[in-house]
């Protein structure tokens, strides 16, 4: 191999190497775990929200039904009044 080829091969070899920053894997895994926690807390809060919405809907239904019954009772009471 002549010198030119050797320099070219050396260049390729040196460029196939890098110095990895210390603690890189740990930083990635910290972010992964954090991401997982955020996802879990989001899914927890969305479950609570959907339960709350369902409860509000049921209570509103009960309230409206009570008002309807009251109205009907008043009408019936009014009609029955002499």
């Amino acid at each position, binding site marked *: 191999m002549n010198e*030119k080829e050797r320099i070219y091969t050396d260049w390729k070899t040196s*460029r*196939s*190497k890098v110095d990895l*920053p210390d603690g*890189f894997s740990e930083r990635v*895994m910290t972010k*992964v775990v954090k*991401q997982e926690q955020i996802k879990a807390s989001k899914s927890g809060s969305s479950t609570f929200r959907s339960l709350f919405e369902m409860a509000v809907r049921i209570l509103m239904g009960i309230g409206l039904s009570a008002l309807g019954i009251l109205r009907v009772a008043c009408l019936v009471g009014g009609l029955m009044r002499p």
Partner: protein
Amino acid sequence: MEQDLLQDSIRRIQNGEPQAFQVIVEKYKYSLFVWVTRFLGTADPVDAEDIVQEIFLSAYTHIQSYDPAKAGICTWLFGIAKNLCLNELRKQRPEPRADFDEVSSPNDPALTLQQREIHHKLDQALNNLSPEHRSVFILYDLLGFSHREISVIEKICIGTVKSRLSRARKELRKNLNQYWRQYEEKA
């Protein structure tokens, strides 16, 4: 054996065990760092680290959609890397290429001044290649991927991989010959 370990880790991650992702990080961090550093020509390792972290986090987020029957985990990761780095290049336009001689062979006592100069010129020539040619050259000549693997990563046919590789090498050789002539004239 190694493939089994990787497949097992992927299955565990998909079943909600994030710690298993560490196997993937350990296995591919080095080659992804090389690819990102050379592809973007980043002089600052912190810049490369941010992008490699983003690659891993994106892979983790989308791991549920990863199908081992379609592609190997390595080609899948490099596909993500390519998309993120192309976005990065678009943001950086016009491409400010760093002198990554300082990063790549800092004060290597084995290199003479002329050799270092030629290495630096070759770095510039690599940076001046189009992203498509640069990517194929790095994957094949620096990281040792096969034509088939590159064709999956780049989503091109094997013939195109070969022609891009040949063009990239030709361009680098042209530069090398030019600098070599100057070097000999000086000597």
